[in-house]
């Protein structure tokens, strides 16, 4: 069975939700601990949402130095699929696995809304289940989700994975909601697909695709 690890940092909040999403698509969820430099033979990794270390300094700045992150960075560089959601995206940027940075929302307020997104790149390990330009609705909830970086270049290189539709909730440059690395195994996403996996508790089930994608990319590999 495909093993997908979800790292819990002190202050991680959506770790249980990510584990649940992994379980729902039929993969084996594996809880990873920030303090253990050990990946327990997982095939893919999710860095979940939350406020690691309270997000007091900068989001993700302290978590990036956790013992487990050395392993995550090495695995990412060797091609293992890694998805950073919200705080996880911030950690990936702080770790320089993804370019740019996430800063305070343009409106200066934490914002939780059901957000329309367009999936732009379906070539990654995490988005292959979508069709190009597919429109989905997934919750976004963050206080520091404004992506800053070289949007032109990211678009030119095809590295923008998803963009906001309609109102841009945080002022991200180029309406960027998610990006990937050159190889396509590392994806960072501000919206929370793990909160759109069950119509009972989310606005849609549109988030399932991120988890089914990784499953099929690993089974197919």
């Amino acid at each position: 069975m495909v093993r997908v690890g979800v790292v819990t940092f002190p202050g991680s909040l959506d770790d249980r939700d990510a584990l649940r999403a992994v379980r729902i698509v039929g993969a084996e969820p594996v809880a990873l601990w920030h303090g253990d430099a050990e990946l327990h033979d997982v095939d893919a990794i999710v860095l979940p949402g939350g406020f690691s270390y309270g997000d007091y300094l900068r989001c993700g700045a302290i978590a990036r130095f956790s013992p487990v992150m050395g392993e995550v960075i090495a695995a990412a560089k060797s091609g293992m699929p890694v998805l950073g959601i919200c705080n996880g995206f911030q950690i990936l940027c702080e770790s320089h696995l993804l370019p740019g940075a996430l800063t305070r929302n343009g409106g200066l307020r934490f914002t939780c809304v059901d957000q329309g997104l367009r999936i732009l790149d379906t070539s990654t390990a995490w988005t292959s289940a979508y069709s190009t330009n597919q429109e989905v609705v997934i919750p976004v909830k963050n206080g520091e989700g404004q992506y800053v970086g070289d949007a032109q270049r990211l678009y030119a290189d095809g590295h923008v994975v998803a963009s906001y539709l309609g109102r841009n909730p945080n002022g991200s440059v180029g309406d960027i909601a998610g990006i990937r690395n050159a190889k396509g195994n590392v994806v960072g996403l501000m919206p929370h697909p793990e909160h759109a996996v069950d119509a009972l508790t989310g606005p849609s089930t549109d988030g399932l695709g991120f988890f089914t994608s990784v499953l099929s990319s690993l089974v197919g590999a």
Partner: protein
Amino acid sequence: MSGKRVVVDVMLKPEIADPQGQAVADALPRLGFSGITGVRQGKRFEIVLDGPVDDAVLDMVRKAAETLLANPVIEDFTVRLEED
């Protein structure tokens, strides 16, 4: 007197808890930085003005610091002129 700016430093009063500074103080030794006994984290505002910075202007900035930039219930501030 252009090329100058006014800087307002805002720090939590010493008796007020500073979780942000504490988080940094806790993290630094883990990264191998030693000998640090305390960290306080505050805000720094750099204010650029369109005319010469005289005492009246500094007074105005002080007033602005008091009303908007700092929260006098929990924070102290200092105002000073700085070369660019």
